[in-house]
């Protein structure tokens, strides 16, 4: 007897398909509000900006000018100063904002008393609005203020904090003050995820502190390291708040950052230049983040193989 297999084939697939289709629709429905908002306020206008950056003078003159706007921006002295300052600041502040919190997290990983109190102390600056402490910064970094008083007691001449090369140092300090706690928590979380048995074995084998850090803890922290670096770069752009609240929209050239430049371009109504600058900035950001991700992929692979 020949059995017709087709006859016996169960067909739940169709039912599941239907259910899946419905669930899928529902899941898009949940996504809908956020997606519309992001489309409306971020994505669609972003494409308009790309368009604007190639146009003569958007609201009135829509003639295509190619890369002229980009050249105008690049040739602008203010833009150059601003980029240079921002690059200097980022290269100085971001590594410090990674290393110092890492050290603090490692220290807090040791069995020491008052651990949670220390965590609270380092995290508190994150909660405090910039506007509230800006007064104190002004007092400390005033020409006759505490900062110079300390320098004088160390036999160093007074420094004009805001109007000299030292301005960069001041911003780095303000940035670190606010962001160290945040990064420290990220590292602490990563340290907490290092498998305890691995560490115990290392202790039993009398591994040195450096070995334990480099060969075990650090390997488990690479993804966090990347994340902290990216977040520090992102947050480094927020020093605009400190600069703006300290010195307003037109600080000295030592403190004139890319953010300040962008901010002032809004007032000037140069939409085409503003757009070009925004595109340049976002391309640079995407490149930096892409490179960091690639680096992490490489290092991460290395660990998985090891």
């Amino acid at each position, binding site marked *: 007897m020949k059995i017709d297999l087709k006859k016996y084939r169960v067909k739940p697939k169709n039912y599941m398909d239907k259910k899946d289709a419905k669930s899928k629709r529902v899941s898009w429905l*949940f996504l809908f509000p956020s997606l519309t908002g992001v489309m409306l306020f971020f994505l669609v206008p972003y494409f308009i900006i790309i368009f604007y950056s190639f146009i003569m003078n958007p609201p009135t003159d829509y003639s295509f000018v190619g890369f002229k706007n980009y050249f105008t921006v690049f040739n602008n002295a203010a833009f150059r100063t601003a980029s240079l300052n921002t690059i200097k600041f980022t290269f100085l502040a971001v590594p410090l904002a990674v290393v110092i919190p890492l050290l603090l997290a490692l220290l807090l990983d*040791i069995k020491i008393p008052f651990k949670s109190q220390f965590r609270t*102390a380092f995290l508190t600056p994150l909660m405090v*609005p*910039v506007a509230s402490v800006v007064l104190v910064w002004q*007092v400390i970094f005033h020409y006759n203020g505490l900062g110079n008083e300390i320098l004088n007691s160390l036999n160093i001449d007074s420094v004009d904090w805001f109007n000299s090369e030292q301005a960069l140092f001041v911003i780095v300090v303000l940035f670190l003050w606010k962001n160290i706690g945040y990064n420290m928590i990220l590292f602490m979380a990563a340290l907490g995820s290092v498998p305890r048995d691995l560490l115990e074995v290392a202790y039993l084998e009398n591994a040195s502190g450096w070995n334990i850090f480099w060969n075990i803890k650090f390997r488990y922290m690479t993804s966090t390291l990347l994340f902290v670096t990216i977040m520090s770069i992102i947050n480094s752009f927020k020093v605009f708040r400190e600069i*703006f609240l300290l010195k307003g929209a037109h600080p000295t050239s030592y403190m004139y950052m890319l953010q300040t430049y962008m901010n002032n371009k809004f007032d000037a109504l140069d939409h085409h230049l503003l757009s070009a600058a925004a595109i340049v900035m976002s391309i640079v950001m995407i490149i930096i983040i892409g490179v960091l991700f690639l680096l992490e992929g490489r290092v991460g692979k290395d660990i998985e193989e090891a």
Partner: protein
Amino acid sequence: MTTKADKYIKKARKLRRLKRGKEKLKIAIITLLLAFVACIFLSPIVLTMTNSLMSQSEIKANYGQVFSTDANGGKTYISKQVELKFIPDMVSVSQYYTVLFKSADYLYKFWKSVILVVPIVIFQILVAVAASYGFYRFSGKLKTIIFFTYIILMLMPYQVTLVPNYLVAKGLGIIDTNWAIWLPGIFSPFSVYLITKYMKRIPVSLIEAAEIDGCNDYQVFSKICFPLSKGCMISCGILVFIDYWNMVEQPVIMYKDEADYPLSVFLSKINEGEIGLAFAVATIYMFLPLLIFLYGEDYLVEGISYQGGVKG
């Protein structure tokens, strides 16, 4: 009688004791060092608070020249030192009295901040929870691309994302109104990223069990995913709150009139005549986030930790 073995044991004990002593010393040094750093970290905050208890004349005597500018807008360098004081000569709450009951300006700005920030926090979280559920269920190729776009948007500095925000606000004619701050804030992709990352940890078996018991998609959300993400929503809310409570970029661009600025910007525009009030207003302004910190520190720490996404 002491044997050789006894000698060795004694020696080993001595060594261990020495090692322990060294360890203890190390810990003491580290603790002291950390305490010192912690004090430096907290000092600006403490200074603001204690100085808010000074009387107007005392502040003027101490810091008058910091906030005074000469006719050319430049700084005047008087040889007198600026006295940084931790403890006021005479504690007085007169500054608070003035801020709270006499000078309505600051109170108005404070409320302006509240009005701007609270709706953003609430609605951003609500929109984000829904979106996270959308990302959590049925992750297709398209959704992966969308989620990636969200991440890139989240990583962009304000100066970049504000340009599209500004153009749309202008197009919609909502510039110079609160909507120009509210709407981009509500749809900011930050909390979507955070809550989605958290939701992805909810075990699928839980969802399956609920579905077998007859939950439809809405019920899976309202009965399982939403309640389970509550902790994450709170921590996310705190993070969003502190960022917007501290906002400078948006109001500076979206409002033409300086009178519309919230306290986060307005505080720095304080003029010489009112510097006595400045510290009191500053203290009042940081009171709310510090209070939230006091009660929600664990949530905040958890929220930051999710962001790092250990094994995410």
